[in-house]
């Protein structure tokens, strides 16, 4: 039987406001433990939250950039549960009146456009961070709590269950990150935990309209892990169903080292969060004027960027969308242009040679040793006929491994293209001399033989011969012999 995977994604993003969402504490990452705390974010008895309007604005901005309706009247609710990193034993969140709802985002996978619904975007507070002297909270000899993170504003972005493959899931996340970075509301660093995601995965027979019981997957710490976790989980569910078993609604933990999901809890063990309206905050009214002001502050988003790349630089739809959807790629692209690279060649190299090298080596583009300036330098040498395309690829591979300037590499290794007539004529004569048969063939009218001779010439010059000039000279020499016959 053939199965369809149905995926919904929840993303939590820490907002990069200066201060926390309900108190004035700083939000700097990496400060000494418990140095950015006060009675309010420590949830001490009797203290009260005061809403940070900047955090509301950032949430509105994200919601608007994701084409959400931004609610006129909204409120906050308490989500109650006990955990040592949650000092009030409730998280101030939004239950039934999120700041943004009913939005969407378009992604492109394998050249096909797809619209993914955004169910809601809401504002809440971050929890503290536990550090265990041991494996986990139950087996640790002791645990320490750092409350610096506690109370940092967080937005939760919940997609509709519109995603159908691990590829789509990755495209969704890449573009979401790109949008959030473009509007500047978060640094979206998965490694620092400022962007986290959970995937809800279920499968159903191809063509079915019903949803299967879903698995909620936690602890997914990179885009690659999202991909792997979804692939793993849909295969696992298919296996269960195909062997006559039953998939039950549950929460599973992604173990990245083992590349598998592990059972955490069943639906029956799920928390009852006992949501109710937060009585310490008054309902929040977002008027039209405020929404319009926030809307006006949204800069160019990936979709607009894509349109610009196509119109201004003549990029193909696929390349344009690949580059514009990923902030790192578009950042690279634009820096490359600034450094003087020709747009189409740059896009070509980025989606070809560079993408392949990054993939093969597992490197992020941000840490590529061939940065945008090096790339521009390399492409400049190709455009100026200083090196051949073949040499460029070799130089690229070399710089990608070792770093440094492509031009210096070419100079140091004597890889510059040979365009000098004298030198090339010498080489041509030597090839004719060494290959009397093919030369005679050409002279006797089998002009195709020139291909072989060119190949020999390139080989002799280690690919450095300017092919145009070399070809011309070979022909000149051989044609001269025709007359002599």
């Amino acid at each position, binding site marked *: 039987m053939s199965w369809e995977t149905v995926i919904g994604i929840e993303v939590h993003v820490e907002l990069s406001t200066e201060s926390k969402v309900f108190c004035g504490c700083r939000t700097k990452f990496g400060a000494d433990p418990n140095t950015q705390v006060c009675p309010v974010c420590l949830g*001490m008895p009797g203290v*009260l939250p005061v809403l940070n309007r900047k955090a509301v604005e950032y949430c509105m901005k994200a919601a608007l950039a994701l084409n959400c309706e931004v609610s006129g009247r909204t409120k906050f609710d308490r989500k109650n549960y006990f955990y040592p990193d949650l000092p009030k034993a409730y998280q101030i969140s939004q239950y039934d009146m999120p700041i943004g709802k009913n939005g969407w985002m378009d992604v492109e996978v394998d050249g096909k456009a797809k619209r993914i619904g955004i169910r809601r975007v809401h504002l809440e507070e971050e929890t503290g961070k536990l550090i265990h002297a041991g494996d986990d909270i139950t087996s640790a000899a002791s645990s320490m709590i750092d409350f610096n993170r506690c109370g940092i504003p967080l937005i939760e972005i919940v997609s509709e269950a519109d995603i159908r493959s691990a590829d789509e899931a990755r495209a969704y996340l890449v573009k979401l990150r790109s949008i959030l970075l473009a509007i500047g509301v978060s640094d979206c660093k998965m490694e620092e935990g400022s962007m986290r995601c959970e995937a809800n995965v279920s499968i159903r027979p191809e063509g079915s309209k019903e949803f299967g019981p879903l698995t909620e997957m936690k602890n997914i710490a990179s885009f690659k892990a999202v991909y792997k976790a979804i692939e793993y989980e849909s295969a696992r569910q298919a296996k269960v169903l195909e062997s006559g078993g039953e998939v039950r609604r549950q929460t599973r933990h992604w173990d990245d080292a083992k590349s598998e999901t592990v059972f955490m809890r069943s639906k029956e063990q799920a928390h009852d969060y006992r949501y*109710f309206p937060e009585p310490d905050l008054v309902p929040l009214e977002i008027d039209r004027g405020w929404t319009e002001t926030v809307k006006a502050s949204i800069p160019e988003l990936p979709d607009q960027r894509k349109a610009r790349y196509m119109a201004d630089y003549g990029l193909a739809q696929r390349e344009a969308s690949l580059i514009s959807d990923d902030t790192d790629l578009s950042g690279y692209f634009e820096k490359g242009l600034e450094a003087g690279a020709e747009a189409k060649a740059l896009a070509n190299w980025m989606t070809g040679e560079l993408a392949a090298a990054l993939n093969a080596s597992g490197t992020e583009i941000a840490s590529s040793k061939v940065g945008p300036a090096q790339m521009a330098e390399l492409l400049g040498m190709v455009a100026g006929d200083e090196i051949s395309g073949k040499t460029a690829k070799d130089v690229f591979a070399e710089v990608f491994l070792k770093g440094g300037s492509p031009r210096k590499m070419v100079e140091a290794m004597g890889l510059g293209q040979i365009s000098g007539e004298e030198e090339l004529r010498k080489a041509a004569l030597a090839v004719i001399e060494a290959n009397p048969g093919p030369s005679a063939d050409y002279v006797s009218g089998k002009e195709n033989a020139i291909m072989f001779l060119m190949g020999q010439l390139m080989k002799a010059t280690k690919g450095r011969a300017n092919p145009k000039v070399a070809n011309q000279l070979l022909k000149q020499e051989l044609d001269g012999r025709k007359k002599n016959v």
Partner: protein
Amino acid sequence: MELYEFGVGQLAEAFEKGAASPSEALSSVLERIGELEGEVHAFLLTDEEGARKKAKEADGLWAAARKGGARPAPLAGVPYVLKDNICTNGIRTTCGSKMLEGFVPPYDATVAGKLSGSVLLGKSNMDEFAMGSSTENSAFGPTRNPWDTKAVPGGSSGGSAACVSAGFAPFALGSDTGGSIRQPASLCGVVGLKPTYGRVSRYGLVAFGSSLDQIGPFARSVEDAALVFEAISGHDPKDSTSSPRPVPDMRKACKKGVKGMRIGLPREYFAEGLDPEVKDLVMGAVEELSAGGAEIVEVSLPSSMYGLAAYYLAATAEASSNLARFDGIRYGFRAPGAKDVVSAMKKTRSHGFGDEVKRRIMLGTYVLSAGYYEAYYNKALKVRRVLKEEFDEAFGKCDAIAGPTTPEVAFRFGERTEHPLSMYMSDIYTITANLIGIPAISVPCGLSKGLPVGLQLAARAFDEETLFAAAAEVERGAGFAGRIPGRIGGASR
């Protein structure tokens, strides 16, 4: 007249004129406390050293003012007491609970900051986490009623009420979630005000029912209560629910009289369950109001009977969440011998909370549970809306609503502890003001069997002026202002 018998206004006047100094006033109340606290047990903590230091500072301020210097705050140097659920920087704050036995807050409640010129004597006893109507739920033993030490002082702010009644302090602050200021004020024969929700900052008040809680004053006269109310109210940027409305001159309001004021008597408040003597005294006070020129009208608040039920859903729901933070992890009591974090939390909460608090946490947790939210919590919200509509209608016909503060005078220790519902009934008249956020005051209107009876007045939101005007009229009629029981303890032994 001893200095401990002076009211707030009288002390300020004496300080201003140089007839007495804050240190002298302090010595007088400390002596009084030393003499009688053993009988009353109104305090959980006294801070004599801090008080002496503060009084000395105030001596200097008033002396400087007499020499033409800046006038100090109106309550500068006046001794007072805070209920022990109001946080005080560097001074232990227990909420009457073992859970916070050793808790010393590193911050002041906003009201404590506003009274920083006054002389804090200490922290008063209360029902644990403000849950109760007799102070019998204090983890540190009950407070006794100064009028009869075999009777309860009411609660939950019983310690503050008893302090003011016994002459330990000219004023005290309490908190009122369902009657916790007005009911003990009534039982102890003092004035107690629950301000409009949002009038007084809740910052630093350990939360019980956040949408109901309000801090307010106890004093031995209406005018003193007005002075204190003025000093502690006003907008606070640290409390999002506090109102930006300006606070008018309340002292003036006390002298306004009731001519032309319409006083509503809800017929439901005078039905069964009301002690006949209490009823007579209340009606006598209403006649005084009428004699003062007020027009008495009958009003109806048919849904009042649902108030108690709605209250015990809303307040417990909020309490279950508010009290969840007491887990022994970061501060306060932690039960020893736990194996892991879950058992540490369970043990701490099992041993740290008393029975009534546990009862309410369980009730509140249930009320908010999946599948019950609509039937209980949401229903309570609906009752609150209906009550508000009924009061709005009543306030179309009258300016203030009058009735008894409680159905009976102070009851004896142990009388109601076995029957939580009978205890809850003592708040039947006070609870609606919290549910809809309006201000209400209890003012003494006489003695029944030697125990004080309070009349309650409620007004429209933010109309404390009307309350003070009417309460002052009742006070003049009853001749109760400034009254302190003649003998404490001995009378009933």
